[in-house]
């Protein structure tokens, strides 16, 4: 993002526009013609529905209802956030999103960092291993969810149960991974990490390769051991990459939907319900577009808050360096 603001600042003419000064060619007509198709798409399919979400959330709206939408004010929000009859479900979903983020973000980032560090060594066969770790990234999430649903099959014959039984010499299991409220969310978390780690890995790998080699040489001359090098060269060098990866993964955690819809339908006993899952089921199964829109608006505020925190952290880092 910083590149954007910088270039905007440079490109913005200080004095009355002089073609030479900004170095940019002036051509209003072509520029608008080039910008218009995308602008129309964004306006129609992003800006309008976004504004509409706010409006809908203040109304009682049902699809195919004989009555037009009626004004409700903040009633939808009050019900979602305060009403004892409804709020439990929303907070449960939010809690699940937070739990998901609290496990996936650190574990997946640490795993991806470990994979990247292993792959960054000058050994033969690294591209093959990279292929293996990256492969799940190209799998559609719907398919991953189906395969893992079978892997999590209950009973001794389930693939994961059989593997755990073998590795523990018969001491552990079998578990009803997706049927037990205690293990359903962890099960969704594990398959999500499996699918997502490879993407983080290649981003971190690119970050590692961007750290100047002479920094490591200087550290070696200072007789810094491997741990000190990791602590004082690698981690600071990866700082921005890691912040970026952490923030993207956090937002992804709040978007959680596909896996839950396919594997557990939010259950058992709401153990895997999420904010987005509720938005969809409220709009769809309960035919309550108004309340679903209110959930959507709350979802957006969460994402916005995360993004603003990210910007602030990155900016502070730049001021320091």
């Amino acid at each position: 993002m910083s590149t954007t603001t910088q270039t905007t600042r440079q490109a913005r003419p200080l004095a009355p526009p002089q073609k030479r000064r900004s170095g940019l060619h002036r051509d209003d007509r072509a520029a608008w013609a080039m910008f218009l198709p995308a602008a129309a798409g964004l306006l129609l399919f992003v800006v309008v529905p976004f504004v509409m979400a706010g409006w809908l959330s203040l109304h009682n709206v049902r699809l195919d209802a004989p009555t037009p939408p009626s004004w409700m004010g903040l009633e939808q929000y009050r019900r979602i956030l305060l009403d004892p009859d409804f709020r439990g479900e929303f907070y449960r979903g939010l809690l699940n999103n937070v739990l998901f983020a609290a496990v996936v973000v650190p574990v997946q980032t640490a795993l991806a960092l470990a994979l990247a560090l292993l792959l960054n060594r000058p050994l033969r066969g690294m591209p093959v291993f990279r292929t293996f770790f990256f492969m799940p990234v190209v799998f559609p999430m719907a398919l991953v969810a189906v395969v893992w649903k079978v892997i999590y099959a209950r009973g001794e014959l389930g693939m994961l149960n059989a593997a755990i039984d073998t590795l523990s010499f018969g001491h552990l299991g079998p578990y009803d991974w997706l049927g037990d409220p205690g293990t359903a969310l962890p099960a969704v978390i594990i398959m999500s990490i499996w699918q997502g780690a490879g993407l983080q890995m290649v981003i971190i790998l690119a970050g590692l390769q961007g750290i100047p080699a002479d920094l490591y040489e200087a550290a070696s001359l200072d007789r810094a051991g491997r741990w000190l090098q990791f602590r004082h060269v690698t981690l600071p060098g990866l700082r921005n990459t890691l912040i970026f990866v952490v923030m993207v993964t956090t937002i992804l955690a709040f978007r959680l939907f596909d896996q839950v819809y396919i594997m557990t339908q939010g259950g058992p006993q709401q153990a895997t319900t999420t904010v987005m899952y509720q938005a969809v089921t409220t709009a769809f199964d309960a035919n309550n577009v108004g309340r679903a829109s209110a959930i959507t608006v709350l979802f957006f505020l969460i994402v916005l808050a995360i993004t603003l925190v990210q910007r602030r952290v990155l900016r502070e880092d730049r001021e320091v360096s």
Partner: protein
Amino acid sequence: MSRLRTTLTYLALTALAIVFVAPVAYLVIGSLKPSGEVIDGLAGFVPENASLQNYSGMLGRFDSPATGYFRDFYLTSLLVTSVVVAGGLLVNSMAAYALARLRWRGRDAALLTVVALTILPFEAIAVPLFYLLNDHRNTYYIQYLPFVASAFSIYLFYSFFVGLPRELEEAARIDGAGTWRTFFRIIVPMSKPVFATVTILSFLTTWGSFLWPVMMVDQPQRRPLPLAIAVFQGQPPYDWGQIFAFGVLMVLPVLVVFLVFQRWFVQSLASSGLKG
């Protein structure tokens, strides 16, 4: 690096590789086994009695208007993905060029708006969009039209175009080339990496798109692959061999393209991250 460290590195890599590959192997092997033997403990990895029966059985199952045709799932996914990718490349690169390399009234406001819209995930607008477009359910165009213009793609193009050297562009201008000609003849050929990045990102996102079809498609004939497999796996009695066969066919083209253009995939996704 010492011998021991090398050995330990390979050991760790191999153990991790097994974890990452096992589900994929299970999918492929399971698709070849009789359905009753897919959920069979670790024997699920043993391709006993292997045959292509699940494939023919699955194709035979999706062969009526009531179930939808497998061919139609495929063509829907293909159509939607092609339009979103190709249309998106054209529309978003043009918009980014106007923002990055031209001076015009309203440019700064337009740029700010696009950057602001990159924060907005599709999930934040899915419900109102579903309400607005409810009359267009089950059409093809409703599956691709909302995704052609993309603030994130414009942003990726923009970041690339801003960094391009000015000389060639100016030379073309001096030779009398107009804005359109300069863009298509000079800028586009110089920008293959960013076109590859946007192609790959938008291809993967669209091929796997799930939330929107769940909301907008209920006719079997109009289902894209991810929705079709989700419906398939939810209908008892479960025929896991056939479901896995469906899965293999769904991911196969992506895997082939990935293995052939692997370097592009990895570089694209890695670089898209670093631009943030």
